[in-house]
């Protein structure tokens, strides 16, 4: 169960066979089920998937943001050659503060409303990754000497770099006084302050208006190039994924069902889920929009057997119910977890293309294919 990995021998981040489950009153929720992914140096990688596919849990497991228990995490997470799972907390914090940065989805709740932006940025610049700073040392570095002034200067510079209008006055503002777009810029500045190697961005800009989102994405693209960042991005928006990333992992039901370089993924998506997802996006061409995927995302307490997508898959057959499909390599740099592409079967199945799936799903302009009884819900 190893995906064909396009990345050389030395990825900056590599995740092997990650399992994350949660104990709950209703039983054990098997949320992430054997995820393999890697981010090459200087590569922008996106994990795309809909609500509840496990993408944020994967990210949180990588960054140790899940408390164990209730979470149960297994697998191997390597950052630049260091195994993270066995690393002592203190060293992990240092790594997280200095070399890995994180941008959260919600620009409001990620900033502390009771401190000015300047204080928060300067703290990050001075104490990022130093969870072990003692009180005395904190007071000394915070209030004595020129270190604080230097940190603030760096913060202003960084705000300027993220094209913040009037950075000096933003330094003195509280987060509530800023607009959503400006807060998002503050978060980006904060993430880049310590010059990280790896940036993890969770649904960046999702809460923003289209035109502001556009500005932020353009800015991010520039910054990624300028700082030579490796990026692991998480998004539900395939259009955004296409805009910025080199390679995409598509997640469904806690598993990675397909991975491919961006262009290949959109030219010829292979997994029926990826095809359905792409076909569901409203199109600007004026072509009719496909009617969406039947059914709803799996229950993690009792996930479907075999391929987790099979209850919703128009091409499912017996084999899909019985066991989890293997990952079939496609060329050297892509892979798909679907039996339709497994040519070791006696009679290889006909693999669907995006167009056949589009037709299969029925389009809104063409109602004849939809029968109300078939559709249980979402």
């Amino acid at each position, binding site marked *: 169960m190893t995906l064909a990995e396009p990345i050389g021998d030395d990825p900056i981040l590599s995740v092997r066979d990650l399992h994350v489950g949660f104990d709950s009153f209703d039983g054990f929720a098997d949320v992430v089920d054997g995820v393999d992914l890697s981010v090459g140096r200087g590569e922008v990688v996106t994990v795309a998937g809909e609500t509840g596919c496990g993408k944020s849990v994967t990210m949180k497991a990588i960054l140790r943001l899940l408390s164990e228990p209730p979470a149960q995490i297994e697998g191997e997470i390597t950052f630049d050659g260091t195994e993270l799972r066995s690393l002592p907390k203190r060293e992990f914090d240092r790594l997280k503060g200095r070399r890995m940065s994180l941008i959260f989805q919600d620009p409001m709740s990620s900033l502390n409303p009771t401190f000015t932006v300047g204080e928060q940025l300067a703290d990050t610049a001075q104490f990022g990754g130093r969870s072990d700073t003692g009180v005395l040392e904190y007071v000394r570095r915070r209030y004595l000497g020129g270190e604080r002034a230097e940190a603030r200067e760096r913060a202003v510079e960084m705000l300027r770099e993220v094209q913040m*209008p009037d950075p000096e006055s933003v330094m003195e503002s509280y987060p509530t006084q800023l607009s959503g777009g400006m807060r998002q810029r503050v978060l980006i500045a904060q993430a880049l302050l310590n010059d990280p190697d790896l940036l993890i961005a969770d649904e960046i800009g999702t809460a923003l208006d289209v035109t502001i989102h556009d500005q932020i994405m353009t800015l991010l693209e520039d910054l990624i190039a300028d700082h030579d960042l490796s990026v692991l991005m998480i998004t539900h928006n395939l259009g955004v994924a296409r805009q910025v990333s080199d390679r995409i992992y598509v997640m469904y039901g806690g598993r990675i069902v397909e991975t491919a370089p961006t262009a290949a993924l959109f030219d*010829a998506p292979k997994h029926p889920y990826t095809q359905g997802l792409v076909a569901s996006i*409203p*199109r*600007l*061409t004026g072509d009719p929009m496909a009617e*969406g995927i039947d059914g709803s995302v799996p229950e993690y307490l009792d996930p479907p057997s075999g391929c987790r997508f099979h209850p919703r898959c128009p091409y499912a057959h017996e084999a899909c119910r019985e066991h989890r499909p293997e990952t079939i390599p496609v060329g050297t740099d892509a892979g798909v977890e679907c039996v339709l592409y497994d040519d070791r079967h006696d009679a290889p199945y006909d693999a669907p293309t995006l167009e056949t799936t589009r037709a299969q799903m029925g389009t809104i302009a063409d109602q004849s294919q*939809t029968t109300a009884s078939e559709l*249980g819900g979402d």
Partner: protein
Amino acid sequence: MSETLLAVDDLEKYFPVKSGVLKRTTGHVKAVDGVSFQIDRGETMALIGESGSGKSTVAKTIVGLHEATGGTVWFDGEDVTHPSEEQLDEMRDRIQMVFQDPTSSLNPRRTVGTSIEVPMQVRGVPAPERQERISELLDLVELNDEYLYKYPHELSGGQKQRINIARAISIEPDLLLLDEPTSALDVSVQAKIIGLLEDLQRELDLTYLFITHDLSLVRNFADETAVMYLGQIQEKGPTREVFHRPRHPYSRALLSAIPVTSEEEESYKPRHEPLEGEIPSPRDVPSGCRFRTRCPYETATCETVEPAFTDTDGGPLVRCHVYDENYADEFDEVPDVGATAAVDDTSSDGGSGQFAVTSDGE
């Protein structure tokens, strides 16, 4: 089909800003500032805009959740701007709303059946008839009787939104105001809901006012599109026209900012022109053209004179000085491809058009 169901004429909604010890009115938030449009029976009109553009306030003012400051709302030939009790009663029978957040618009302590029943109860539908109707409605929204005794927390977002739609159509309204009905949903579910809304429109002869921030969603869905910015409609016309040749710089920016999934679609977008800055506060609307502070084409006239609606080339109505004067050529250059496609589109509605051949690399 050309009977006008809803007409909004120069609608204004100002919210007073009070300050000081005496709470004196010191200014106004002009949430809606002179909006006019009309929707014919059985048609869909899309109202597009970013947050703060006043699009939801328009809907709320129409149904009487806000009282209009100025202008008139005509519903089925009757002036309902300041409705009497009687009129309000009738309007509530005939206009229903579906809101953005499917969860918060359902009572968590009511079963699905009860939620759908309440509007009919209020309207005095007899009990046995109600039960029958609930099953019918669940069927209409592509659910079934199994859902009758479920609570909202047992449902997915898409299912909840279906219940909200069922509830809204339970008393057979003429007009549905859909306020971002799919924004909280995933794309695969969003497509389903849009499909459902189209089916219902055809079956029940519904009229829609569809409010959204997502331009790409209305491309196939709406007959007319109006683009709002800071309380005012900036461009308004047949959806096909607005898409294939957006005239207002703001519509162009909105359209060009949509992240798409194929090269083919990229060619349907106007040239990428990121807007500067952010939407100004509606408390302090810029003089002249209210879009000028973010417009890449700003001229001296824009600062002083507020542009009126013009239809320079017989297309959609546009509020823009620049489009009038000398930039028409520059605006022309972009959606050449779209123009051909739109023509193609007219001949065979829903056909994949000539570009399907090159699409998706298949």
